[in-house]
């Protein structure tokens, strides 16, 4: 019954699947248990038949649709929207799932607009209430979690945060591969090139201890409190994005979805609220300590120890206490 079906649109680059792909198929399978529909996957690109065959050979799903055409390389939203629009209009699935990645966020809202559906982005799970799906998504910088329902007509287009569904729960099996005609897809960007965003001089991925500064530090001139703590701990300094954007620290100190991924044994976050884009970069840390003047800051929900207070009083006190402990 197509009106209950789930389509999972997978991302690939240079023939390699996006790391979240198995999580997404798992999400599709779990959602299909609720809707009673079938799971379909889509792979778009050039020479991606092998990827489609791999998925169809190991996952429990109905069909893997392959849109294989030179117009799909390099990626442009125009070509991707053009390739998917007709297929989704005729299949009319209930849900279309994407990774909450920078590429799908670039085109899927426009695809939803073209197909005539709804957009639910950045979801962190779903609940079923009285037979209806309620999507969970962080709002207000992660300070609150919203439950959202859809009420429009047309498919619901959903992007899912990483690590919400576990690929360990992927139901194995097989499906069929079917090719998807790419008519009328047109590139709408003239690619000049892909560049490295900046010189990565500092590698924080191996750091054992990190002291991370957030916007709450308040200015480049206030950075010494962080530097002194880092120095007594022998720690590396990291930061949230606004600290970098404001020029208080160079870009190679940024931690998060558009910065580095770190996993130190000790992570001290001072004046960082804990937005999802920051958390994805540091949630592999061993022991997390957060210092924040707002008791409701979401960073505390991923911390082992929390201190509510002004970091300009608390951090120097910690520096002094460590200095003393070290004798």
């Amino acid at each position, binding site marked *: 019954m197509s009106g209950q079906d789930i389509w999972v649109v997978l991302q690939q680059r240079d023939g390699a699947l996006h790391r979240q792909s198995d999580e997404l198929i798992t999400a599709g399978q779990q959602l299909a248990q609720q809707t009673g529909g079938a799971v379909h996957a889509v792979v778009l690109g050039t020479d991606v038949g092998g990827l489609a065959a791999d998925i169809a050979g190991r996952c429990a799903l109905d069909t893997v649709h392959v849109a294989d055409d030179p117009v799909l390389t390099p990626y442009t939203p125009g070509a991707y929207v053009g390739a998917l629009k007709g297929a989704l209009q005729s299949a009319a699935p209930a849900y279309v799932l994407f990774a909450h990645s920078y590429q799908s966020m670039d085109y899927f809202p426009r695809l939803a607009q073209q197909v005539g559906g709804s957009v639910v982005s950045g979801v962190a799970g779903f609940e079923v209430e009285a037979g209806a799906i309620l999507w969970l998504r962080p709002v207000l910088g992660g300070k609150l979690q919203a439950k959202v329902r859809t009420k429009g007509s047309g498919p619901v287009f959903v992007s899912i945060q990483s690590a919400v569904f576990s690929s360990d729960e992927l139901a194995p099996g097989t499906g069929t591969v079917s090719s998807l005609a790419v008519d009328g897809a047109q590139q709408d960007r003239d690619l000049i090139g892909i560049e490295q*965003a900046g010189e990565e001089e500092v590698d924080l991925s191996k750091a054992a201890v990190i002291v991370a500064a957030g916007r709450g530090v308040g200015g480049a001139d206030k950075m010494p409190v962080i530097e002194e703590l880092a120095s007594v701990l022998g720690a590396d300094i990291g930061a949230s994005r606004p600290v970098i954007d404001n020029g208080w620290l160079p870009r190679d100190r940024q931690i998060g979805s558009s910065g580095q991924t770190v996993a130190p044994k000790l992570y001290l976050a001072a004046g960082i609220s804990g937005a999802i884009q920051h958390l994805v970069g540091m949630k592999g840390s061993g022991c997390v300590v957060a210092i924040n003047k707002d008791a409701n800051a979401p960073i505390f*929900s991923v911390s082992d120890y929390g201190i509510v207070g002004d970091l300009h009083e608390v951090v120097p006190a910690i520096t002094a206490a460590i200095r003393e402990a070290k004798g």
Partner: protein
Amino acid sequence: MKIAVCIKQVPDSEARLRLAGDGRWIDESEVPFVINESDEFALEEAISIAEAKGGEVIVFTIGPARAAEALRKALALGAHRAVHLSDAAFEGGDAMSNGRALAAAIAREECEIVFTGSQSDDVGYGATGSVLAGFLDWPHSWLVMGVEMGEGTCKVTREMEGGLNEVSNLALPAVIEVQAGINHPRYASLKGIMKAKRKPIDTPSPSDLGLDPSAIGHAGAGVEIVSVDFPASGKGAEMLEGSPEEVAALLVDKLQKEARVL
């Protein structure tokens, strides 16, 4: 050249949040509101292009009466005029219905380029700009970290994952969804604030824009918030209390003896 900028007024990120009585949103009564962060960068980009190349900057917002403050601030920063979709029919929209309404308002002007933020700091759909580009049938780019205006085109640097940037040319007219950090937003001058008082704010109704009230605001939205709550505190931090010296001593002790990381 006419340049459109979409700005949203959102709760200040420093605000203490309390839930509204119906549990569907926050109690907005005592919350200070500001211009959405990435929209400030979008506005700065537009104003500096207009200064360099000549042109008119028009700011657009959908929001209640209070959102006029955000428009006045944008006018004080250098925008030339403003369009405020304040009719009650525009309220309660999502990315789809707001994108439709903004597209209709922008289509009335002959704009060559539209700047939006990448994501609003309240509902954070990250989608309104791309949806409005779809309604206008103009190319767009999300998460833009650099813009260089050319003749009939615009060179855009878009952030990708893994520390990479995509550099491409978009044919104008286009919608550019700016990521925070792209420039250094200016401060309003006293002169700017004085001048802003005389700049016009237009408040078109849905019918002025040829919009059916059932297609905009809450009626035209595909999603609605059922409830909001403070997130479950995960593994949950052990909160240390006392004076700065006391919590510092306690922390060091725990890091040494419990967590064994010192």
